[in-house]
């Protein structure tokens, strides 16, 4: 398990170019109603469709019954923070958003439409996204720079009547929490007393800190570290943060109750857990620093493509559990474990919003799933190939939407699970069948 996976990135990139050029995009729309004759359009389209429109005009909620709204999600980006590539613009973000739509479909059975938009202006984005509400059952914000992404998520969640999600914040935070819950179980820790260092204060770790608070961790035991060092109330840039990044500012006040100062090295002394989402490593976290953490330390080194410290080095220096963002190491903390199920559940319950407590429920469900399969230091979070996890997450989200009074549809958790399982299985079957009969060509076969 040493320094694997460094090669291969270039080769995959070349294949991606070749396939993209062959398929000219990864998704398309296909009908789900039978069309055998042009006369059929007199029902699917005019004149028959007018009756459907008139019904919806009388009761907008009927759009969920008579159209695809119930299963559709808009993937919105302004292209300002795409993967690790930075601000590459909306057009260049499209292949990434198409990939996201593909995961939505394959793992969540969701019809997701990429919508990269041609403005980076915050107010304009808010206007555009709000105006999309009639057409979609949910909004997925993607690859938008920080701190703008916080304003967008908070404002749109508050002002829209369909769920709004920002995956770079909430998806990552949800998966991290799930893995942490199980890591605490293995190392015999409780939430309240666990001292956690969050290394990197971008969108993912700010969201993780907030989610940890919602999950019952003590904010005072969390220490946040960014490029200026440990965050504390009297740090020089706090006044500026109050204006430019109020979310980070707030955490500067509420975290770090012992008022520790210094850098990452000082922060790690005596810490139980480090959750790093900072810069690609290796060597961003040193083995020596891990040695100064508490015994049975938990190390999440989540930077991609290379974790802040190689798992083998962390373990050699005393870490008991290591998680990364990569699939070629054990314990992959991957937002794709979260968002397909979250949206499946959000759409199935037709929830108006997704709050932090609902994400905690989803994380608990993920953690429980792994526990049922049998926890070990190499297995604290479900793997992506355990696809039954997605309807489980869906049922947790949908049922908590009912509990919080956000759902337009009320069912039991078991009913939501059966429903999600059915939709996800059906969509996977369609894709498999289309490949099998050659309507989706598989050029990789030859």
């Amino acid at each position, binding site marked *: 398990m040493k320094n694997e996976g460094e090669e291969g990135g270039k080769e995959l990139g070349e294949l991606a170019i070749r396939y993209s050029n062959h398929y000219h995009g990864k998704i398309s729309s296909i009908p789900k109603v039978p069309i055998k004759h042009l006369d059929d359009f007199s029902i699917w389209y005019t004149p028959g469709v007018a009756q459907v429109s008139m019904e919806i005009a009388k009761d907008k909620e009927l759009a969920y019954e008579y159209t695809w709204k119930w299963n559709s999600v808009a993937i919105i980006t302004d292209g300002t923070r795409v993967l690790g590539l930075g601000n590459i613009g909306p057009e260049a973000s499209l292949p990434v958003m198409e990939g996201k739509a593909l995961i939505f479909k394959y793992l969540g059975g969701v019809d997701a439409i990429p919508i990269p938009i041609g403005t980076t202006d915050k107010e304009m984005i808010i206007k555009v996204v709000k105006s999309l509400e009639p057409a979609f059952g949910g909004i997925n914000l993607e690859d938008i720079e920080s701190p703008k992404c916080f304003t967008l998520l908070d404002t749109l969640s508050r002002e829209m009547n369909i769920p709004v999600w920002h995956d770079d914040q909430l998806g990552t935070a949800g998966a991290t929490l799930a893995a942490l819950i199980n890591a605490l179980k293995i190392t015999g820790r409780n939430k309240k007393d666990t001292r956690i260092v969050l290394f990197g204060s971008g969108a993912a770790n700010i969201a993780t800190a907030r989610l940890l608070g919602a999950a019952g961790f003590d904010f005072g035991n969390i220490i946040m570290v960014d490029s200026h060092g440990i965050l504390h*109330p*009297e740090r*020089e840039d*706090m*006044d*500026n943060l*109050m*204006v430019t990044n109020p979310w980070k*500012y707030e955490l*500067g*006040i509420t975290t770090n109750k012992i008022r520790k100062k210094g850098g990452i090295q000082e922060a790690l002394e005596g810490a139980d857990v480090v959750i790093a989402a900072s810069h690609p490593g290796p060597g961003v976290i040193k083995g020596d620093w891990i040695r100064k953490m508490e015994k049975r330390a938990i190390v999440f080194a989540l930077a991609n493509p290379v974790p802040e410290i190689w798992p083998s080095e962390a373990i050699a220096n005393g870490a008991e559990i290591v998680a990364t963002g990569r699939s070629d190491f054990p314990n992959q903390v991957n937002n794709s474990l979260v968002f397909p199920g979250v949206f499946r559940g959000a759409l199935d319950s037709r929830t108006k919003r997704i709050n932090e407590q609902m994400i905690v429920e989803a994380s608990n469900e993920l953690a429980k799933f792994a526990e049922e399969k049998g926890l070990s230091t190499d297995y604290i979070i479900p793997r992506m190939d355990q696809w039954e996890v997605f309807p489980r997450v869906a049922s947790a989200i949908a049922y908590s939407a009912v509990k919080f009074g956000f759902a337009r549809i009320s069912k039991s958790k078991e009913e939501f699970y059966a429903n999600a399982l059915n939709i996800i299985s059906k969509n996977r079957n369609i894709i498999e069948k289309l490949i099998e009969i050659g309507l989706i060509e598989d050029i990789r076969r030859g």
Partner: protein
Amino acid sequence: MEPIIREMKEEDIEQAANLLLRLKKFNSEHDPLFSLVHNVEEEVKKYLKQAVKEQFRDAYVAEYQGKIIGIILADIIDRLFYNPRKEVRITDIYVLPEFRKKGLGTELLRELAKIEKKKGCSVITVEFPTENLVATKFFKGEGMRSIISIYGKIIE
């Protein structure tokens, strides 16, 4: 939390200077015309020493458990041509981040107004960088309005 608001004393200057320095640094973020001088720390202390002594400048602090957590400084101005004649103009007001959102800024402002009213001031004003929108919101919330504008540029 019940801080004491009282006049600034000579022995407060070391701690108060830190708060004033933070404010000046924050101001410098808003406009290049507020770029700090190289010896700003020294100047801040000198300024506070004067404020403690001078008649035309008043300085108060909020103290909590022996720590200075807020400051307010104001000049007393004679408005030669206008009524009311005597004005108290806040030049600096600052509360440490940890102690914000607890009404301490309001308390400092109101306490200053109360004291200066007794000394004959009928108008209270405040100056801050135009781009400081947090301050705009705060003072508007205290019932104040913009009454004068200062425009500026570097002379080439």
